[in-house]
């Protein structure tokens, strides 16, 4: 079994699901969202980061056993506090086999998958069924715009959303609001139209653009393209969702 590559583990991740949670960030992502605030999650391989505190390698290999031992050490605490374990990324679906093996070893605990939804349908379907809740990103409804800003088509994502909705696993739609790109009225309305009737939808989270998103790019020798947006106000339209009867949480 090949080990998983984890670029971070965060305990007490208050924004990653109910209760007290520990989030495992898996390295590697097929999307190239220009606004990504975790650029070290993009490349599947470990890489050097030149941080203000010195160099460190982002990405550490874990066997499913090692990760499960770490998580199982906390399960009683997570269970006692309405929480659980979240798998995020990067795109965790890229390491689906590793996650399957880890889940096989994990003691009973609430499991949440935080995903872009971009994967082959059987990979997606097989994995989501093993989770208690899914956080599913929807960025852009327009196919061309999606390709321009994330580098991939949104067709597989929308297909997988249907699979998720039919799976019976409750899910939250997460929309990153990037000024002038994803925060347009048109896009927010299109997302609302697309998701409001889906069985299993718990709510929509609106996530305003993180102004510090560009900080890590130079540490990885990468260039951040969105500096112009750093002071741009975000168009937050929860009303477009509420009017469709969707519960909304603005972060």
């Amino acid at each position, binding site marked *: 079994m090949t080990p998983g590559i984890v670029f971070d583990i965060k305990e*007490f991740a208050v924004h990653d699901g109910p209760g007290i949670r520990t989030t495992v960030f898996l390295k590697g992502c097929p999307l190239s969202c220009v606004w990504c605030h975790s650029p070290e999650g993009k490349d599947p391989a470990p890489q050097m980061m030149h941080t203000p505190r010195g160099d460190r390698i982002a990405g550490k290999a874990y066997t499913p056993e090692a990760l499960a031992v770490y998580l199982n050490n*906390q399960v009683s605490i997570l269970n006692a506090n309405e929480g659980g374990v979240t798998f995020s990324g990067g795109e965790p679906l890229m390491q689906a086999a590793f996650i399957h093996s880890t889940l096989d070893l994990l003691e009973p605990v609430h499991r949440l998958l935080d995903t872009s939804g971009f994967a082959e349908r059987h990979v997606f379907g097989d994995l989501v069924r093993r989770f208690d809740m899914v956080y599913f990103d929807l960025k852009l409804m327009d196919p061309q715009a999606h390709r321009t800003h994330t580098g991939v088509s949104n067709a597989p994502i929308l297909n997988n959303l249907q699979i998720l909705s039919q799976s019976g696993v409750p899910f939250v739609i997460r929309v990153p609001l990037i000024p002038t790109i994803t925060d347009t009225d048109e896009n927010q309305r299109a997302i609302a139209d697309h998701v409001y009737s889906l069985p299993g939808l718990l709510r929509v989270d609106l996530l305003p653009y993180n102004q510090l998103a560009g900080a890590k790019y130079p540490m990885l020798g990468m260039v951040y393209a969105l500096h112009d947006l750093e002071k741009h106000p975000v168009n937050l339209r929860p009303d477009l969702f509420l009017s469709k009867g969707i519960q909304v949480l603005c972060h």
Partner: protein
Amino acid sequence: MPLSERLIRMKEAVRRGDHHQYRQQHVPMLTAESDVLGLSWMQRQARLITAMCEAEQVVIQPDERIVFTRTLPTVPPVYQNEDWACLTAERTLHELGPISNICADWGFVLSQGLLGRRDAALATRQRCANQPETVEFIDSAIETIDAVLALAERYAKAARAMNQGDIADALTHVPAHPPQTFHEALQFLRLVHAVVWLGGHYHVGLGRFDQFMWPYLERDLAAGRLDNTSAEELLAEFFISLNKDSDLYPGVQQGDNGQTLTIGGVTPSGEPATNDLTLMVLRVARDVSMIDPKINLRITADTDLDLLCLATELTKKGLGFPQYSNDDVVIPGLVAHGYALEDARNYTVAACWEFIIPGKGLDVVNIGAVSFPYAADTAIRAGLRAGESFEEIMERVRHDVQAQVNRLVGTYSDLLLPPAPYYSVLMDGCLESGCDLSRGLTYNNFGIHGACSANGADALAAVQKLVFQDQAVSPQQLLAALETNFADNDTLRCLLHEDGPKVGNNDPQADVMLVTLFDMLAEACEQIEDNGRGGIVRPGTGSAMYYIWLARGHENMREPAVGATADGRKAGTPFSANLAPAPGVRVPGPISVFQTFSKLDYQRIVNGGPITIELSSSVFGEPESIRKVAMLVRTFAQLGCQQLQVNSLNAETLREAQFQPELHQDLIVRVWGWSGYFCELSPEYQEHVIQRDFYEMG
């Protein structure tokens, strides 16, 4: 509830320092007169209180309902320099000299009134009329009581003249008599407490405030004299008044003044002690948002989540308190160290962290710190040079820890505590027995902290793993790198820093080193049967200013600064404060940190010193987050840890405050065992606060 306009005016006036206009240029001079009269030390201490009370000028500001504004900026000496030198020659003074960092039995004093205490003194004087030493003490104590009563009378008279009947009535009744109302109780405490500071004492704590004040509030609420709103208004004014003199208190940095109070916990008989005043203190401290008083909340694994949510709302303010102490481990730990069960249940938290018993404890809770990085570093360097095994290196550490403890205790074996007749009035049994508190109370223990433990443990764990087990680094390589501060070998420094096991990760290897260091400290302390005052020595986990002093050197430190260390830390970098991962060490978060520190044996390590965690202020964004932080606090207690300090920090705001202090005058941060205004800290402490790792969420 937002503060009323009156309180906002008062708070702003205190922050601006409007009351500084009343401060006098000159303080009374005592020494010449005392020399002529041939006064003893005891009599001089009483004379000091009298002179200060007499010289205090009455200040009653229009908005005030609880009065006393200190106008004497300094406390004069009671001996001329050469006489003082003679008196203290060959003796050890604790810090600045005067008795400090103990807690009066405020409840007892309130219940008797100062006249009640005076009667007790007179009874003893009659009984011991033929014992000159006792008579001198009692007369001195009575002199101080009379001085405070005269000061109260002057305030009452002035209030009457200003048609402030409410204040005049209160001060006619208290502190002479037991308070009849919550208002009188607060006025009593304000005055009697402030006079302790006037006598040169410092770190004057307020003890179990919600316990001894509750009966007065409860009566007023039941009788309809107060409702919750009017009671909170009074309490808020009292809290604001405690901030008036902060700049006059001695401390390493401004804010380090030990004006703490403790709430919650259990009664001496073991019943749950939380009451409506406990909640009110949390609410009012949140609304007032000033550095004083610093709040300590006693909890257990079963503490109600609603109480912890309310406490978290105070944490959200970013003041760095409340600090939590876990009764489940503190009380049995104190009992294991010879404290009676009902006294242990009645503990309060001293200036920073240490557990003391109001009215009964004359513990000197911080006689100094053992430098774990020094013990580890000298052992590593000497051991590697001598080609020793890791076990032999650990043996060197054990010897050094023991030597440091013995040296501290040796120095304090001739501790000289000045007489304190006024403070004795406020303690259990001093007037009744006729003995000044400097001669000892029920508990006379010392405390020693094991400082900067994470760095010490990390250095040892790195050597064990990378030099001895993996043999990835040769002893010569490591020695050369340490001696040159990694000048030519940053690769090695990164290896030590990244691959060495680190405290705070629930890592068995690093945590064994941590536990071993504290076991060595406990063992060294336990070998001391008598500290010279009939007490023992309590080991603790705090760091105070040592995380800077041990790293950079300081005139008050016997040990030289520690250079580069084997955990991959360069010379000059500050060490870990209290119980926390070393600065710059990556940890997954607070759960692993709690798991690491839950491994310490808190039945042996009983002097306090908190796990310190920093949460990004963004954590507190949503209502649900308050509940999650409260659950995290409960987890700390459920894992059997001893003490916790949770800070809410926004590194960006702190950076801004460094560049534009004028825009951030009210920004408050927790420093080690206390909170202060960020802009009033010196740069090295500001920098450490910013660099402290915090768990950024999202």
